[in-house]
């Protein structure tokens, strides 16, 4: 029940972010995006952690 509630919160959060950019995805789209973010955000955090801080763009 709790995880279902978390999922709904996450989808609602993404829906709001999308709306602020003028985009209106449905729940199926957002669930696909959420699955992707759940993979890439930890990988991003790891890259941020190991990247030498003095590295410029």
């Amino acid at each position, binding site marked *: 029940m709790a995880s279902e509630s978390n999922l709904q919160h996450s989808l609602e959060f*993404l829906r709001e972010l999308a709306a602020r950019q003028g*985009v209106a995805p449905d729940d*199926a*789209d957002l669930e696909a995006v959420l699955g*992707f973010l759940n993979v*890439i955000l930890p*990988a*991003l955090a790891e890259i941020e952690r190991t*990247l030498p801080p003095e590295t*410029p763009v």
Partner: protein
Amino acid sequence: MSLRGLAEELKTGVLSPREAVQATLDRIERLDGKLNAYISVRAEEALAEAESPPRGPLYGVPVAVKDVIDVAGARTTAASRILADNVAVRDATVVARLRAAGAIVVGKLNTHEFAFGAMTTSPHFGPAHNPWALDRICGGSSGGSGAATAAGLAAGTLGTDTAGSIRIPASFCGVTGLRPSSGLVPNDGVVPVSWTFDAVGPIARSAEDCALLLDAIADTRSVVEGGVEGLRVGVVEALLDLADPRVADTVRAGVSTLVELGATAGPVEVPLLAEAGTIKQLVMLPEASNAHLEWLRTRLADYGADVRARLLAGLFLPATAYVTGQRARRVYCESVSRLFERFDVLVAPAMPVVAPRIGEQEVELGGERVAFRLSVIPFNSPWSLAGLPVLSIPCGFVAGLPVGLALVGGRHADETVLRVGHAFQRATDWHDRRPPEPV
């Protein structure tokens, strides 16, 4: 016949441009109903243009381009519903250069929707079918370019490659494809995926044919003769270990051929290989979302589900992700460039598997079912992340389906990978094998 052989016959008058174009159009008419390599065919225009093409190195040669590349007066659909009626006003620079070299553009080739996927199974224009097995994908996104080249529906083609889109169909269709160094070939007049990584390049039957096309579109003068004596080959063992063992064995045999020709080979460890896919996505996804932002707002339902999900993903990454991606890319590029102090080329499987069946979303690797779209990333993203030239050449077959060997060169060493590919193809006949005609 090879593109070079055809060009020679046209130059010497054995064949006229009109005859060459008509023969290609006849073949498209006869076979493309089974392959779906073409989205549109310029039959009347091509025949008219064949009356007096410029007397350049591609005089009268029938070519075709992926349908994300503008040809004046023709539709550029990107295999999408959104651009289904989009007629290009002017030629992309690469098309103008092909024409200036004498080539005749006979049509526009099927692609994954918006060149943003590895299958070429557009829900709007239908899948391109692999000439080696019609129930299998051509790979993507330049799948029509791979299929048309393999089936002889054009003497040479252009594709585009952001994350493997030339190399994947070249590997799956048993033809030769070059992703040029980033920035070598102009991208204007091409529907973008990701400005940092997009590259237009040739798919043809051989390295020699790819060199002819590259020279036309990049204004280069490639010398493919010279062999591989003393060439230092770095073998990317980590990718061989990840691939289907049958594919890995086929690629290892290809490395042995290079050694027999005089090269030396040794293992190479590519730094940040496991991270390269993520770093690339951090840059590519926001750029793709940005390129599509207006259509995401107004035409969201008109995308296929897979492309829509990928484009939406880029909207939700934090701004810092893009910056981190660019910074990590700098570190990666510097590390990889140092490898080319020890090696002239790197060798790896172009793909970990042979072409999956149309509709299959997963492939078997290491005893596990893996999403096909994820399986391709380690084999393609590391090289395009660094903007390196990569030539995929046929090096054998597994279960009757082609296997591609990737030759990776240092930045702007496009001529080197073409030279190595040419030497390999002079010693082997994998690139001369033809699929059966579809019935």
